[in-house]
Structure formats: structure tokens, C-alpha cells
């Protein structure tokens, strides 16, 4: 058991180094990544054309997103492939397994639902979903809806959640609360996760 823990810790450390080197390499190839961006290691980026990609400050990505900066589907017939910029504004939230295609801009503060395909530009401050992604409502309206669902419900901090998951009786109480409705978990200190150093622009 001890040896397994030790191996797992080494593996985690290696994965973290690998993720950091990958981001550094993308930045050296010309991709712009803002401050405090959460870009998980499972994100796939179009490495060959990554200099066309810009990610704004404090944007968060879910796992396994795919960012493309070229489209060569007409290449065989027209002898021409399309390339385009991908500009993701500040404070965006991109859901897990989203696919972002080329030649578009995602405005600041936009929320993209899980599993969408962003094929056209999205306005700032909107909540978008679907394939291709369309504006469903504004981000404020979405946040208001979630807040309404969670009003009068318990709210945890990350530390309190961890604490209540530790003991069986508090875990049971948490289980009851979660199965009956929305429970929010607040962050104690701003952003969490792998952040990237600021890109010198």
C-alpha cells in the first residue's frame, strides 16, 4: 500500500510537470494564454496552428476540450484549407468535451455548456449550448436560475465539504442534502487548479 501511494505521488508529480511543459511549449509556439487560466492537461489544442489561438485571463476549461484553428474538409476538392483565429475572451467558462472550431470569437464572460460545438462567434456575457452552439440566455440569467434553485439550500466551502466527506455520519447528511436538490460549493480563495503564468504581450 505504501509503495503504491508513493508511486501514485510520483506519477502525479510527473503529470504536473508534463502539463506545465506542454503549456510552455504551446506558448513558445505563439499561443497566447492569459493569467490564471485553467487549462487541464486533457485539452487538445491544434498544435500546428496554435499561434492563432488566444485565451483571455481567468478563463476556465472543462476536461477534454478540443480547440481547432484550421478546417481542411474542403481541401481535397478545392485545393484550399481554411485557417482562422480563435479568440476566447476573459472570464469564459467552457464546458467539458466542447469542440471549438476556427474563425470565431467568444466574448468575455460567456458560459459554454458541456459537449457543445462552437462553430460561430458568441456574444459576450451569454450562456450558449448545443451543436452548433446557440445563445440560450444571458450568463446573468443563467446564474440567477441556479441561484434560485439553490436558494434556501445549504452552501459549503471546499474545506467544509472535505471535512463532511471524511466522517460517515456527516457524509450521510451531505448525501441527503444533495439527493433532494441543488447544493452549491463556494470557493474560499478565487481560482483553483493549474494556473499558467501571464503571457508577455
Amino acid at each position: 500500500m505504501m509503495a503504491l501511494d508513493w508511486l501514485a505521488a510520483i506519477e502525479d508529480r510527473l503529470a504536473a510537470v508534463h502539463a506545465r511543459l506542454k503549456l510552455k511549449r504551446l506558448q513558445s509556439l505563439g499561443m497566447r494564454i492569459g493569467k490564471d487560466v485553467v487549462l487541464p492537461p486533457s485539452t487538445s489544442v491544434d498544435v500546428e496552428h496554435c499561434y492563432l489561438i488566444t485565451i483571455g485571463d481567468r478563463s476556465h476549461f472543462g476536461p477534454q476540450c478540443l480547440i481547432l484553428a484550421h478546417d481542411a474538409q474542403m481541401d481535397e476538392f478545392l485545393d484550399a484549407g481554411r485557417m482562422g483565429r480563435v479568440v476566447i475572451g476573459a472570464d469564459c467558462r467552457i464546458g467539458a468535451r466542447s469542440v471549438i472550431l476556427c474563425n470565431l470569437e467568444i466574448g468575455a464572460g460567456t458560459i459554454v455548456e458541456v459537449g457543445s460545438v462552437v462553430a460561430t462567434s458568441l456574444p459576450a456575457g451569454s450562456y450558449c449550448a448545443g451543436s452548433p452552439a446557440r445563445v440560450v440566455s444571458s450568463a446573468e440569467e443563467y446564474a440567477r436560475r441556479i441561484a434560485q434553485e439553490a436558494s434556501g439550500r445549504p452552501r459549503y466551502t471546499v474545506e467544509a465539504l472535505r471535512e463532511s466527506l471524511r466522517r460517515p455520519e456527516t457524509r450521510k447528511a451531505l448525501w441527503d442534502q444533495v439527493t433532494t436538490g441543488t447544493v452549491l460549493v463556494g470557493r474560499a480563495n478565487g481560482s483553483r487548479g493549474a494556473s499558467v503564468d501571464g503571457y508577455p504581450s
Partner: protein
Amino acid sequence: MGSTSHPVEWLARLKGRLVSARQQHRIRTLRNRGMHIGRDVTFPQDLFVDEEFCALISIGDGTAFGPECMLLAHDVGPGAQLGATRIGRVNVKPSCHIGARTVILPNVELGPRTVVAANSVVSRSLPPDTVCMGRPARPFSTLAQYLETHRERIEAATTFEYSAYAIQFLTPERQVVLVSAALAGDVYIVGGRSAELRRIGGSQRTPLETYAPPPPSPVRSRRAHRTC
């Protein structure tokens, strides 16, 4: 391009070599197991192929897959009720272009020259010369219409020559020009396909085998059994 000094760059290049060698081996193994992979197919490293039933899959000449596609030839959906797995043929005919993250399910035939948009699920056969999208994928427009819109856009867009602006020929100055043009509007890279056909460059769409592959044999040889 690229400086040899940076260890990350150096490691990345070494990794690229290893990945392409492994990819060649993978394609050889799949062919030995009875999967038909035509000539000039873009077969990305992260293309998921149903290894167990890969003999039911056939990919025509000149077909291109985007990143992270999935080719399935079996379906265990009704497995618990029927005690059986459904298997089916996947026939991708020549010159199909499959977008990123598309999942192709069994019992499906993609007619020649079908373009499938990104993140689609192909669960039924698609007619030839169409552009399809969605989950499940349905015809969206004809290929002629699609090509006509792109032809018009190329007329209006800024175009760059592949021989100067492809990634392996890109200098920092050209990169700046390209990025500023992309921020202003449409950008097309012209001549990539013909350069590949003349074996210039070495982009993703370069044929995986420069020699003519042997025709797929319907009967598996004993040698094929041994290699897999």
C-alpha cells in the same frame, strides 16, 4: 524552423518520430487483421478503432479523419437483454472527410465524398456528395453547395500559398502576417493538397505509405495470424 537548443523542442521532435513509427506499426497490424485502409488516408494517431472487430471496417482511398474520431463495429447496447452483441460493417467509401470527435457506429455506409461536421454521431448511412452534421448525423446540404460557398469565400478572403505559409515553412514574420490577416477576416491556405500529391512538405495529410499497398485479401494468410 525551430531552434534545436531548447530541450522541450528537442524532446517534442523525438516524440514525434516515435509516434509516427508507432503509427506505421499500428496501421500494418490493423491491415494484417483484415481491416481495409486505402491509400492516402489521413489516419491520426488518436483515431480510435474497434480493434476486436476491425476486419469489419473498411476505409476508402483519400478519406481524412479529424482528431479524436471513433470507429466502432460492435454495439453491446442490448447485450444484457439478449445475451448477444450486435456487430456490423462500417464502410467509409473514398474521399470522405470526417470532422473532429465524430463517432461512427456499426451498420453504416458513408457514400463517397461525404463531409461530416465536427462532433457528429453517424448512426445511419449517409448518402454520397453531401455535408452532414448532428447527432444522429443527417444530410445538411449538398457537397456542391458547400464547395460553392467556400469558393465564394476564397474569392473574398486573404489567401496564402502553402509553399510559404505551411507550418514547416513558417517564419516568425510570416506568422505575424498570417495572424493579423486571420484577425481581420477569412484566411485560406491554397495549394496544400497539390503539394501533398507532389510529396512536398509532410503535413498531416501526407500519405501514410509512399508505396502502393497490396490489395486487401479476403482470406487472412497464416502470416497475418502470426503478426497479430
